[in-house]
């Protein structure tokens, strides 16, 4: 039994911390240090004469802090990348606080050495109270570092989602209609126009419905009932072509028909089951579609028989549909949905697992149920 799991995100490419050795990041750090220095000086009540001295002192101190922290993060990044996101965040924060403490202590010590030279200007550059200065530095450092890390994390997530969405859109376009299916259906319709115009008419209507469904928004949510209707439309067209060879057994009464799912998650599985399974068997076979409802989780399983020994290489494109469904489920329910496939003897099984999201009354259906015949 071989199981293919939903692919995890590639950690190295989407690591949330930016590269602190890169010139643009260093420039950003310098600018932010300058700005924070300005803010700190502005809020402090001082005489106008002292303003510039204090601004220079604060900026210089913050610049030192910023650059040292950047250097530390730059060095630590390769190690942090290998950790889980939670751990990397914790360790990065600890590293930053330790660095801030060391720099603050160093600045205080330097101030102790030079600050008593008698020059007021120089003395005002340096902190006077040891522990309060250290504590204030660490507290401010904690808040700023925490906010920065949170920001990096959120923006990385956002980038990742955008990438996923773009990928899903491309793959959806590629996976939507298999040319093989389209041309075979056209051929069937061409034959039926002569022998059975009624069936031909129905096939054209079904094909139109199927295309309409595949042309709808890639990330549109529809109800399970609508999704099953799309799959049944597909089944009707294939039935005309394959006749008795194709049997489909539906066991989906356990599923809530109003549950919301991304469109086209079941139909491609049925299409695969026909293309890679039933169609390759001279005697045909039965596709079983089973639905289960487990607390808040829904399962849909599609099983189909496959040829005993396929001497021909596997038909190409078998992973396109699965990859596409996986991506769109991941997009809809990050980390909470999965697509598993395995072989059980001479049967191929694909199982979708995803959380139950009921359609609320306000939700406008992307695909009116009336358009698809039950």
């Amino acid at each position, binding site marked *: 039994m071989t199981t293919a799991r939903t692919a995890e995100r590639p950690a190295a490419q989407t690591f949330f911390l930016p590269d602190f050795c890169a010139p643009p990041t260093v420039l950003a750090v310098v600018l932010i240090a300058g700005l924070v220095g300005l803010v700190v000086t502005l809020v402090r009540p001082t005489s106008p004469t002292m303003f510039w001295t204090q601004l220079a002192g604060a900026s210089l101190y913050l610049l030192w802090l910023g650059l040292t922290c950047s250097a530390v993060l730059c060095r630590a990044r390769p190690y942090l990348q290998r950790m889980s996101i939670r751990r990397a965040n914790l360790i990065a924060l600890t590293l930053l606080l330790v660095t801030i403490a060391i720099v603050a202590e160093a600045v205080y010590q330097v101030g102790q050495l030079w600050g008593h030279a008698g020059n007021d200007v120089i003395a005002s550059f340096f902190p006077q109270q040891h522990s309060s200065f250290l504590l204030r530095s660490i507290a401010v450092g904690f808040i700023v570092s925490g906010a920065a890390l949170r920001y990096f994390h959120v923006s990385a997530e956002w980038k990742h989602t955008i990438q996923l969405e773009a990928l899903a859109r491309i793959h959806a376009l590629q996976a939507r209609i298999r040319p093989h299916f389209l041309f075979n259906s056209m*051929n*069937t319709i061409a034959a039926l126009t002569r022998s059975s115009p009624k069936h031909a008419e129905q096939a054209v209507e079904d094909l139109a419905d199927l295309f309409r469904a595949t042309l709808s928004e890639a990330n549109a949510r529809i109800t399970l009932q609508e999704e099953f209707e799309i799959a049944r439309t597909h089944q009707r067209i294939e039935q005309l072509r394959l006749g008795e060879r194709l049997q489909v057994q539906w066991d989906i009464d356990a599923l809530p028909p109003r549950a919301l799912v991304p469109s086209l998650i079941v139909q491609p599985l049925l299409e695969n089951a026909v293309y890679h399974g039933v169609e390759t068997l001279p005697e045909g076979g039965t596709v079983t579609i089973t639905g289960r409802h487990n607390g808040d989780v829904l399962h849909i399983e599609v099983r189909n028989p496959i040829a005993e020994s396929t001497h021909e290489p596997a038909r190409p494109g078998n992973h396109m549909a699965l990859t596409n469904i996986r991506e769109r489920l991941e997009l809809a329910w990050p980390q909470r949905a999965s697509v598993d496939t395995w072989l059980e003897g001479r049967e191929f099984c694909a199982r979708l697992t995803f959380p139950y999201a009921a359609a609320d009354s306000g939700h406008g259906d992307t695909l009116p149920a009336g358009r698809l015949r039950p």
Partner: protein
Amino acid sequence: MKLLIVDDEAPARERLRALVQELDDCEVLGEADTGERALALCSQLHPDAVLLDMRMPGMSGLQVARHITAMEHPPAVIFTTAYDSYAVEAFETEAMGYLLKPVRKEKLAHALRHAARLSATRLTRIAETARIEPRRQQICARLGEQLRLIPVSDIFYFFAEQKYVTVHHRHGANLIDEPLKALAEEFAPDFLRIHRNALVAEKFIAAVERSAAGHYVVRMRECDAALEVSRRHSAELLRRIRGESL
């Protein structure tokens, strides 16, 4: 022109039949929904041309065509396919007649006018370009008017005597019309040439023994045959057998 229509899908056959009936001096002799039935009908009805679907369950169109070329009076073959970019590329490079489904009447008429017989080597080249396994899974033997398909996995060995080649298999022995050399090439790693006149299935070799006369003899499993190994092929055979046991 007498035609045989081969396609696993009923509507596809129905449509081709309707189109052929509209053409002058063309008639449909029969229809087959599998490769096996197609070959049986071919040897019974002797069509001039076969309209052959590429993608069928079990024996593919290309395999059927391969068997057809081995017939005494092979009919011309025109492949039909709904969508297969590799196969189309192969037909184009080999300048082969093919039809895309849904088939147009004019194209069908044109293809029938230019229908030609195929050679086995050409089919092998097509299989390569089309990325389809060119090896047959069955060997076709003629018994008078009847065709008999022998699964390659049941074959013990091929033996050449004068003009003919005999296939010895689980259910007896049959004469076939194919040269040993071509068979050796097609079934290369699984079948070993041990003599100018013998090609044996490696999996049925029980033992290689040395006879009193000093040459090697292959003893076969499941059949009471002992086949002489020629000097020329003995080194290769021994290397293969030893490599297996190591």
